[in-house]
């Protein structure tokens, strides 16, 4: 199985946030020195046509980020289009440069940091769903408690995709003044 995750990738899974956070901090320092561009890591659906619909990514997301086995608490969504006969659609947060979800959030629960990352403050979320409506690609949903489920681009799902559908990529973007 050449396309399966290698052991190294799996090991990072137990502490995905640390790995990503470390890099993100480094990047923000860099961004501080040179204001014109910023770099961050984001989740990318590199090969959607390779998806077999196993949902391992969704279970990885909820397991690692919420400690539960759940589809409704997953920030990555594998949709069927015409049942298992159709193609799968893998929906992930696009990590917009100018995120409409943040603009729509009335309480500041979704906040964009200087490095471009969007962080979610669960305690501030009142479950209005405006963020979900604002996202055209429908990457945000509400969980059973009515709180937003927002991808943090931690990469947990990537390590559990058996077919190399998902990748982490580094994006470099110019920052508008």
């Amino acid at each position: 199985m050449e396309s399966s995750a290698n052991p190294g990738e799996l090991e990072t899974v137990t502490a995905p946030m640390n790995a990503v956070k470390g890099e993100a901090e480094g990047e923000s320092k860099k961004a501080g020195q040179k204001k014109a561009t910023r770099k961050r890591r984001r989740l990318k659906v590199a090969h959607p046509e390779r998806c077999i619909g196993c949902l391992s990514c969704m279970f990885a997301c909820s397991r690692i980020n919420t400690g539960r086995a759940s589809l409704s608490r997953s920030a990555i969504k594998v949709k069927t289009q015409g049942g298992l006969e159709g193609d799968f659609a893998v929906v992930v947060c696009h990590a917009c440069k100018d995120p409409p979800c943040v603009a729509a959030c009335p309480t500041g629960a979704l906040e964009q940091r200087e490095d471009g990352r969007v962080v979610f403050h669960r305690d501030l979320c009142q479950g209005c769903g405006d963020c979900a409506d604002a996202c055209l690609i429908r990457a945000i949903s509400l969980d059973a408690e009515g709180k937003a489920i927002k991808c943090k681009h931690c990469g947990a799902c990537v390590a559990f995709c058996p077919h190399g559908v998902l990748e982490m990529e580094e994006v470099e973007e110019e920052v508008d003044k």
Partner: protein
Amino acid sequence: MLRRVLYIDLGKNESWVEDRYDLFEEWLGGTGVATQLLFEECPAGIDPLSPEAPIIFSIGPLTALFPAMTKTVATFKSPLSGELGESYAGGRLAMAMRFAGHESIVIRGAADRPCYISIRDGEVQIKDARSIWGIPATVVGYILRDVETGVGRRSIIRIGPGGERLVRYAGVVVDTYRHFGRLGLGATFGSKKLKAMVISGTEDVEVPDSKRYREIYNKLYKTVVQTDAMEKYHDIGTPININVLNQLKGLPTRNFKESSFEGAEKISGEVLADDYLFRRVSCAHCPIGCIHIGMLKTSFSREHEYEIRKISYDFELIYALGSNLGVSSPEGVLELIEACERQGIDAISTGVVLAWATEALDRGLITTDDTLGLALKWNDVEGYLKAIENIVKMKNEFYSAMAEGVEVASERYGGQDFAMALGKNEVPGYHTGPASIVGLTVGVRHSHLDNAGYSIDQKAAKKNLSPEEMVDAIIKEDDSRGVYNSLIGCLFARGVYSTENIIEALASVGIEKTEEELEVLGRKIFDEKYRFKRREGFDLEAARIPRRFFETVSTMGMVDPETIETMMEIYRKRRGW
């Protein structure tokens, strides 16, 4: 943690939920629980197609929590064998039941007109299905997808015309590509006028110690995707066995008259994978993706216009509708598989029944008057397609008998020596030797995955096992599967889930079991199934073994009736019967 049983009464149009901690505590889940529910629900000696005959579905404590824990078990009184009916299906059903919060579902009674069941979390509705009665199993999926909710997390299970018309080996199609194939659950659905069940839910599963859960999960996931434990299912898939068994002289050919097929290479898993496979799909929460879907492209005009059909194929189907019918073209095999899919009938049983009919016609036991003019011959795909239609329509007395299975058909028309059923169930695709024959005769599920006798034969061919050793291996496998099928895992992953791994996985979800406890439980579950079988008239002493098994060379050479007799004796002794 598991407890909830959903009861649905189609006759009274009502449903309710009961907490049954007792059941899950003692019997774990899956087949352990479903067997007990069958005892509770099924009165002794009833007609399997009467309203009193129940349908039971169950999942287990590891469902949706670990990779490859993808199966749902159904128990019922088999319309084909008249005793224990047990069948397993993958797809998304197990996950959907888990997230809807129903660990078992009991369906009682019969509706007075066609209906389907819609379950959305705790909400259960019995809906009118008159407009979809008579529609092929494949098409029902499209229709219900549009009218029901739960996209991406639901499961739609349904029957085709075969189930509606009570073909005794009709199956239930699960999420288009998987099935409760064996032993006639589709006919039980049909007898209740139940066309389909749609289920989805939004619950999630909390674990007591999420760190421990993640650790054992990572270990199991790694084993599933990174070792060769499941390689064969990932690459070529189950049809890899066509070439393997053919070389071993274990591939039933033309109704078991031969055990190797000159056309095997042409219909092999390798050829299908190279030339027809266009897609692989997974059951929910299994990273393997063993569901192999072939594309059958048929021209219907001179202007490059094509019909495209997407057909899932596996080893058993290629044996039953390929080598065993002498069909040597991949297109022919795929077409026959598709015909069974549309009608919603079990492909193994269909192939075996057709093989018997072909030989019976050749030997003059039946005539073309019986077959309504069809001169059934090996490799005659067109003839077989027509015969499948005639069986489902029960066109005349002969086809009606065929719709009752090869046991009944051969009782009426003769040819029992080559009517390839054990325990009244048409046999799967192995002529590997005595362990396969004995395994299928004594096993509780009467399917090829009962106790893997075929695999014991293959081991015996290499290491010269004694009859005692073969019997012990059968018993060990059957008993341990009682536990595995209560979790419920896919048997393709059984190499990953060692006893040690099962104990760890259970512990991580708060169920503490020792190796001894699991061993005792496995044996107990087996005994309970035998209790049900015997109650419904099964008698191991009276088991009929078709003579054909002794006339055709197997992987283990010619099988001697005395070897079988000896092994059966050892078996009874070991079981303490």
